């Protein structure tokens, strides 16, 4: 028997659908699911994809060391994201609500601080690379 997959990390140019990502973390034992998603004005994202996957899996592992979680999914969209669409979705399931609530907040902060992902805002007079404030 193989262990069911519990951590899901994806960097993709596909549209991110909240329900699909919630479905990844659903579990018979999971009473609580917390999600966070960000929608954007038109933005361009790029990433050092293999390193971002590694960094995010490490961040998930650190998150799991702090709270008792069942399943964790982190999806980040890349390329041009049209107005109103999701740039990032995090979904975490846990037995107790406090854990997924705290863990989602911590993990989105980890992602913003550590994952090698960059966004470029597109203005009529040119583009500018953004920097996350710590």
């Amino acid at each position: 028997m193989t262990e069911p997959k519990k951590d899901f990390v994806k960097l993709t140019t596909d549209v991110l659908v909240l329900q699909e990502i919630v479905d990844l973390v659903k579990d018979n034992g999971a009473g609580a699911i917390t999600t966070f998603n960000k929608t954007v004005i038109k933005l361009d994202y790029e990433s050092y994809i293999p390193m971002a996957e590694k960094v995010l899996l490490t961040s998930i592992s650190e998150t799991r060391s702090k709270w008792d979680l069942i399943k964790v999914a982190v999806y980040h969209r890349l390329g041009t994201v049209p107005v109103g669409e999701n740039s990032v979705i995090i979904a975490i399931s846990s037995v107790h609500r406090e854990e997924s609530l705290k863990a989602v907040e911590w993990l989105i902060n980890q992602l913003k601080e550590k994952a090698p992902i960059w966004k470029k805002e597109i203005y009529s007079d040119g583009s500018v690379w953004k920097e996350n404030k710590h």
Partner: protein
Amino acid sequence: MSKEFKVLYFASAKDATNLSSETISFPSSNPSSISLQELTQILKSRHKKLGKILEHSMYAINMKYVEIDDTSIFVKEGDEVAVIPPVSGG
């Protein structure tokens, strides 16, 4: 064939170099390993506009972050070095 390492550029570093990546040979003075200080000098001499960006960037060597002024770290043959400007995911 001389020994080489690879450098990846992202975001503002990509714009400044007009490159996603390049392969660089070790200098004859240090044919198999260079410090990060030497790396920075090499990159600056190849790309005029990169100097200012490196002041606020980190390196990643084989997908692991290192501070750009860490004197204990060396780039070796076959390493993949990435220039990581301040990140802005999310």
